């Protein structure tokens, strides 16, 4: 089981994922440079946070055309587990691997803070280790995390269980004040129809050690590793 961590120019969370994979969950991993054309040898792919290509024009818009993305799309279509966090989520949406788009936070400012998210779907490789409705305390760090999808799309996603996480209060209620960025229906994370591709705005790698205040992100890593084994 080997995890590939993608690196685009302007990506910055790849080192943190590498740290958690290598030093915390002790799983083999490797960086995949965006100019590569193959992801052979990897069993799971992570698209980390950052500002790929400066997030110029739109977040993820230019990165989705990186050479490696064709291989990522193929890997995903074949059912390989793929997770995008923050900028990685934005790239997956732009690439059409996930529905919807991420827009500028309603407050028009960047937000770096701890939030709670509620698990809405355990039927993905990344969330299988979570309990139904489990609350995770986890950081966000983004300026453009307002999830949007057209009403028809959203209805279909709801029906198929593609909504994976919602922002919630510390006691698990999905309310307007628990929503840090104005996402529709408090959506913090979604999956594709097959469930093997997941994107979320929060940073699970920042919630993987007690020293840093939370280990709630760990099950996402462990779930993926377990799936592939």
């Amino acid at each position, binding site marked *: 089981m080997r995890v590939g961590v993608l690196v685009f*120019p*302007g990506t*910055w*969370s790849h*080192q*943190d994922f590498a*740290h*958690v994979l290598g*030093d915390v969950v002790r799983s083999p991993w490797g960086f995949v440079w965006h*100019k590569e054309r193959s992801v052979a040898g990897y069993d799971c792919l992570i698209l980390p946070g*950052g*500002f790929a*290509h*400066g*997030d*110029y024009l739109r977040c993820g818009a230019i990165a989705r055309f990186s050479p490696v993305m064709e291989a990522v799309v193929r890997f995903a279509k074949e059912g390989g587990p793929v997770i995008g966090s923050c900028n990685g989520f934005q790239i997956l949406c732009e690439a059409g691997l996930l529905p919807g788009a991420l827009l500028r936070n309603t407050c028009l*400012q*960047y*937000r*770096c*803070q*701890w939030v709670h998210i509620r698990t809405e779907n355990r039927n993905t490789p990344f969330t299988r280790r979570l309990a139904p409705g489990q609350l995770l305390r986890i*950081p966000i*760090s983004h*300026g453009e995390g307002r999830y949007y999808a057209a009403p028809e799309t959203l209805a279909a996603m709801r029906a198929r269980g593609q909504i994976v996480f919602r922002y919630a209060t510390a006691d698990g209620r999905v309310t307007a004040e628990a929503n840090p960025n104005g996402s529709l229906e408090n959506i913090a994370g979604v999956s594709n129809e097959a469930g093997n591709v997941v994107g979320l705005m929060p*940073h699970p*790698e*920042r919630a*993987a*050690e007690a*020293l*840093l205040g939370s280990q709630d992100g760990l099950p996402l890593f462990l779930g993926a590793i377990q799936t592939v084994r």
Partner: protein
Amino acid sequence: MRESKAITPDLIASHGISSEEYARIQGILGRDPNFTELGIFSVMWSEHCSYKSSRVHLKGLPTQGPCILQGPGENAGVVDIGDGLAIVFKMESHNHPSFIEPYQGAATGVGGIIRDIFTMGARPIALLDSLRFGPLGDPKGRYVAGGVVAGIAGYGNAVGVPTVGGELFVSERYAGNPLVNVFCLGIAPKERIWLARAGGAGNPVIYVGAKTGRDGIHGATMASEAFAEGSEERRPTVQVGDPFREKLLIEACLELMAQDVLVGIQDMGAAGLTCSTCEMASRGGVGIEIDLAKVPRRETGMIPYEVMLSESQERMLLVAKRGREAEVLQIFRKWDLDAVIIGRVTEDGMMRVKEGGQVVAEIPAHPLAEDGPVYRRCMARPDYLQETERADLSCLPVPRRLGEVLIQLLGSPGIASKLPVWRQYDHMLFCNSVVEPGSDAAVLRIQGTRKGLALSADGNGRYTYLDPYEGGKLAVAEAARNVVCAGARPLAITNCLNFGSPERPEIMWQFAEAVRGMADACRAFGTPVTGGNVSFYNETLGTAIFPTPIIGMVGLLEDIRHAATQWFKAEGDVIYLFGETRDELGGSEYLKVIHGLETGRPPRLDLDRERAVQAACLAAIQAGIVRSAHDAADGGLAVALAECCVSGPEARLGAIVELRGEVRPDALLFGESASRILVSVTPADADRLEAVAATHGAPCVRLGKVGGEELILKGRGFECRLPLARLHDAWATGLSQLLE
């Protein structure tokens, strides 16, 4: 208007060059300079680059210490932290550009200081921002503050260096001249520190990064002038930052430095190509010859003068080993960065600039970089001190409703929660932030070790205005105290010295006194100065800012598990105060906010007492008995206690406290006597804490207990009861109301 521009007295004067300086230039060249050369001298000998007014005073700062690997003189200081690792840090100001264009000025300030750090081979892992604005009730103040904060966020977040702390203070005295000081720290293997020096005749000189445009021409000279009416006209010089390209530069340069192909490297900051070329040559004792025709350009028709003086951002100059050019260029190609060989190292010590075949400037590098003018400027004690020192504060009425005073202080922008600022900054990247913003100091763990670093930026311009020597001392003491409260031993400092015009004797006196105070405090705490930055001419229409030295302090935790935070942890814990409260209201936030006065003498600092208090606090933390530690500074004890109650990220906890002492109630509650730390311990550890205090000779009194839904403050003749919700509201909304 090619190079032929005649060198007239007017042209010389418009470059800010005095007639003595011009004579010196003629002496160095043995002839008159041409236009390009005049421009080169003017930026290198500007106050900003040459430190011509400050140098004689900075000599008094202690710069040596057992762990110092590199003191002032390079792009940043380097300190050994054991385990084969070194930290590299520095602070820079970007005050003038931030006034002209707040967003871009602050953004490029962040970019500039980050380059100083990775230039030395260190990966930048943390930023701190120290900000001073005019009143935020005023639209202009709000515009500047909002823009600066957004600019720091915009650049820092995108480039991927977390902003883990900082400070913000508001006063009329900064309305026409905000301060934006940014600190950056990086980490590197101790054996792989790179210096900014050229060497080896024949080695290639390589230009890397963004293309050169006309941005920021005369930025360095601008930073060396006070704002006059009409300086808004200087706007074409505004530089725009590109954090994306900077991120590529960081990665490419660090990748390059891991190979064995480099000789030296320097960022192009103030005075761009000029400064990097002559400084690298001068430090290496060699010459450099470059051809401007090869410099990548963004704009057409640029003359050599413009290319040499441009301050376009995100550019680096490096000297590689001969024969290894291909490897260097290959790495930059991987990162899609422009990299071009623009010249060679020579033996003759000359900075020779060509355009195509023609020499357009030829100046001995060493005298240009090192033999600039040095001034021992006139100094005079300012007259206002006569009045402020004699101010009789004892006749001020003591407010009847002291609880309301506390609420008002908590909501004042200098004291209120800075969350509305720092939640806009990524402060967690790299998974090191053990203590996030909002406590006395940020604490980062050092991966691969058990250690941690504590970082704090501090300085009080009002104190320094009322007594520059004490202000300098107090800034260092407070920074050290903050780091100690986080559980770290203070290691070393960097600093930014923000003052008015050095051509005014009163300002120069303030400067000299503040530096003397800093030096004495640094010696007392064993924290040498590893570098810094001087920003003069912070005035608008003849009104100077408060003289404002800002200290960036770095402390080391041997064991990251000892990291401490300022807020109370549990009901029933016992609250102690290290240190003593005296009848000191001068220069306090209370005096300003409640009485509208900025006068008196700032609190006296006894360095021995400060050391004892810090030693006791640190020993207690390291013994594992401290549940919270918070330094009592702006707003005094009452504010510090309120912060202990409501500043925690989770539950709020009340307290009941009894304050004894002979001083008047407002001084007891809101006076800012130095060398005080509030700690809380479990009842079982109370005796041990007292014993630790006694061992270190630190005064230590028991004030009360944590618990309840209120903060209750009792003393002779007063009792205030404040519900936690009220305290929290005042404190949490004080700044957000103004910034949104």
